[in-house]
């Protein structure tokens, strides 16, 4: 009797997991199809577009780049040089040294010949930790360095927001390398439509590429497993996921590593929150939510061709912390804004986007782990057929592989951002290997993040940067 109940429970769970993965993967394929449609439209729109015109324009909006840095002495100079050479006419770089305990400020003073600008007139529209000093560079007038007491990334971005003077603010991580013409591409939706309040761009994995003087000079897919498999994940998330959301209700996430916002809209929303580890997503959800509640511009778009490069963890320990933190951030944001979920008042955001983030992004690792455990235990205790277990694996991981290959095909058809066909075949190999161990491990870390969120953990965990594979600029 008990055996029958356990068997029925196991089989029922397996069916649930099977159905769940079928639905999720079908939706992901729909997102991919929408992404393909959007990418085609986008390619046609930008064919032979004269972006150079912006460069000489007297009416181009000022963009303030906000770059928070905490203990980034290894990469900060290269990142700032890369930012200062972006091809955009009205550019201001605001680097916020968020109470670094290493030599970040000293490195900046040495490399950019900083001069202290004490107590400049700043209107403190958002409260932040005390600002210790403001610096301007004698060599590069467009650089402003804010030295403040440590308050976390959100606090640093808020300090940058109040010091900045641009109409638009671009939030990036200090270790992000932005492609030279990325801002010219990114600003397009803001000029096109007054309803746009934020735009995100594609992030690619820099590990494996050659970087010279703060620029990626040779795009290459990573050759090591861990960065390689993350490169595949980034491709799926950005090329298939976020582009697809442009047509299915708009994005809820603009990556903290690279996003462009209307500065006034950010300030009116109160800036970044300090008490969450998912501050980038939280701000976007809040901005969209407020736009629905108060009326006004609310569109969040993803523009696929402006590219920024970011370093991903090369060690399991660091990756585990990152995924744990990301998932805690996601859970926290969805919990804070739970009233949006399935609420028709918020339109597509309430009825499609937010439920997707709950049922797919948040719960998928839990369902996946349950499915794997049930399959293994069921096979051990003989309550699940081997054929059924194989069917589960096929649906859960086989469809995932199809999705990965289709994403790589889309990449081949559009941007070829990782060099040649050979690089994409390397990524294909990583994509095929991803399901063996890596996916289960990340699912475990994410579930652990969920549990830690329930227990109230709010820490960031240390993220060690190893620096890019870089060479100095050639001397003339």
């Amino acid at each position, binding site marked *: 009797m008990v055996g029958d109940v356990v068997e029925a429970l196991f089989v029922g769970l397996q069916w649930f997991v099977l159905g769940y993965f079928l639905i999720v993967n079908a939706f992901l394929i729909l997102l991919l199809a929408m992404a393909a449609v959007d990418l085609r439209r986008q390619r046609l729109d930008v064919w032979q577009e*004269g972006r150079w015109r912006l460069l000489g324009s007297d009416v181009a909006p000022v963009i303030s780049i906000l770059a928070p840095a905490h203990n980034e002495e290894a990469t900060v100079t290269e990142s700032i040089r890369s930012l200062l050479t972006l091809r955009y006419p009205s550019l201001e770089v605001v680097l916020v040294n968020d109470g670094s305990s290493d030599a970040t400020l000293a490195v900046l003073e040495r490399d950019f010949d900083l001069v202290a600008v004490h107590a400049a007139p700043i209107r403190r529209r958002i409260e932040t930790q005390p600002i210790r000093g403001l610096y301007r560079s004698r060599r590069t007038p467009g650089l402003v360095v804010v030295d403040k007491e440590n308050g976390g990334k959100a606090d640093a971005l808020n300090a940058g927001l109040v010091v900045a003077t641009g109409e638009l603010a671009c939030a990036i991580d200090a270790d992000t390398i932005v492609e030279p013409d990325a801002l010219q591409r990114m600003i397009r939706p803001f000029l096109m439509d007054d309803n746009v309040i934020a735009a995100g761009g594609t992030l690619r994995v820099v590990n494996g590429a050659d970087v010279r003087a703060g620029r990626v000079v040779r795009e290459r897919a990573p050759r090591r497993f861990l960065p390689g498999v993350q490169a595949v994940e980034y491709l799926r998330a950005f090329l298939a996921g976020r582009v697809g959301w442009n047509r299915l209700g708009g994005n809820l996430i603009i990556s903290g590593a690279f996003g462009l916002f209307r500065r006034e809209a950010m300030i009116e929303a109160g800036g970044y929150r300090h008490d969450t580890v998912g501050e980038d997503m939280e701000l976007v959800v809040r901005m969209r939510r407020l736009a629905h509640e108060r009326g006004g511009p609310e569109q969040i778009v993803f523009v696929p061709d402006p590219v920024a490069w970011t370093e991903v963890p090369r060690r399991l320990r660091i990756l585990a912390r990152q995924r744990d933190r990301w998932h805690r951030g996601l859970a926290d944001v969805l919990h804070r804004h739970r009233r949006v979920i399935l609420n028709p008042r918020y339109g597509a955001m309430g009825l499609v986007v937010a439920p997707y983030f709950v049922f797919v992004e948040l719960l998928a690792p839990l369902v996946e782990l349950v499915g794997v455990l049930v399959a293994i235990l069921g096979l051990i205790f003989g309550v699940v057929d081997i054929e059924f277990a194989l069917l589960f694996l096929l649906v859960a991981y086989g469809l995932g592989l199809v999705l990965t290959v289709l994403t790589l095909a889309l990449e081949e058809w559009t941007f070829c951002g990782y060099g040649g066909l050979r690089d*994409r*075949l390397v990524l294909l190999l990583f994509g095929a290997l991803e399901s063996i161990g890596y996916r289960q491990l990340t699912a475990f870390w994410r579930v652990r993040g969920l549990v830690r969120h329930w227990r109230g953990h709010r820490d960031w965990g240390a993220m060690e940067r190893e620096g890019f594979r870089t060479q100095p600029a050639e001397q003339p």
Partner: protein
Amino acid sequence: MSWEPLLLEAALVLAGLLVAALALLVVHGAWRVAADASWRRPTAEARAALAETADRLELTPDAARALKRLTARRRIDLFAELAPSVAGAPRSALADAAGALDVIASAERWCRSRRWRRRLRGARLLTTLGGGETAVPPLLRDPRPEVRTQAAEWAASHPEPEIVSTLTDMLDDPRGLARFTVMDSLIRLGASAVEPLGTTIDAAGGVAAVAALRVGTAIADPRLAPHARRRLDDDDPAIRAWAVRLVGAVGGDENAAAVATRLHDPADEVRAAAAVALGRLGHWPAAPALGHCLADPSWAVRRNAALALRSFGPAGELLLNRALRDEDTFARDIARQTLDLPEVSLPA
């Protein structure tokens, strides 16, 4: 229960999907590699031929043959790649070559297409290569903002009065990119745009008036100052603020005095704009009035007035130093902060 048939079917479907996806990836990649290899040499020859055309200012039969060896798409891409890098006579030579090879005619045909993306493509090509004097102007009134925008970009190098007049009519375009491009084109047209801009400044309201005043500020032609002065008493504070900027950009005693009266405007954005304009003009007779603005209730006015005074040099700094003993906390505060600055630059 036997799952075997279902498993087999699922495996077959998945295998089919996987093979199709892989084929898409590998075949497209291989095709791209092969196409790049086979077109490398003809493209290089055609590029050299086009460079030679720009250099010699004529299309030789050999160069025409080299260019005709490419597909129409590759030929167009090549013209579009080289044309923005040259100007003057070489650019005209490229335009003539494009005309001789039917590239211009194709682009003009596209401009008349029913499909808006094709019209956009035609206008883009003609903007890059030149030509399209009859095909592009009707696109300034195209229903698609993308096409209007491109036509406005084309118009920047066509100072004919009808085209400039159409551009000024577009200053209230509902789409931001079209407005931005129209403003940019009018700025590039410079003196040719002054007369219709003056008419627009006099007659337009709202967005169009602000856009016209913004363009006027960038051009800063003295002929625009009387039109702007007439809008200094407008009901709309945005119009008054931009009129102040334009009048300030033109300069001169009469205009500076007109700007100084706006330091008492009821709207803080107008007072702030007036303070910056006076700072830029170095109009020191306005220093006492700017000194009063240090206690203004608006932060932006206080900051701009303080920066303007600091930019006057010793005379302004004297007033800032006096403000350090002012009864008003905000005046003392902004004076202290501004005097501490190692150097000043007035905000935009």
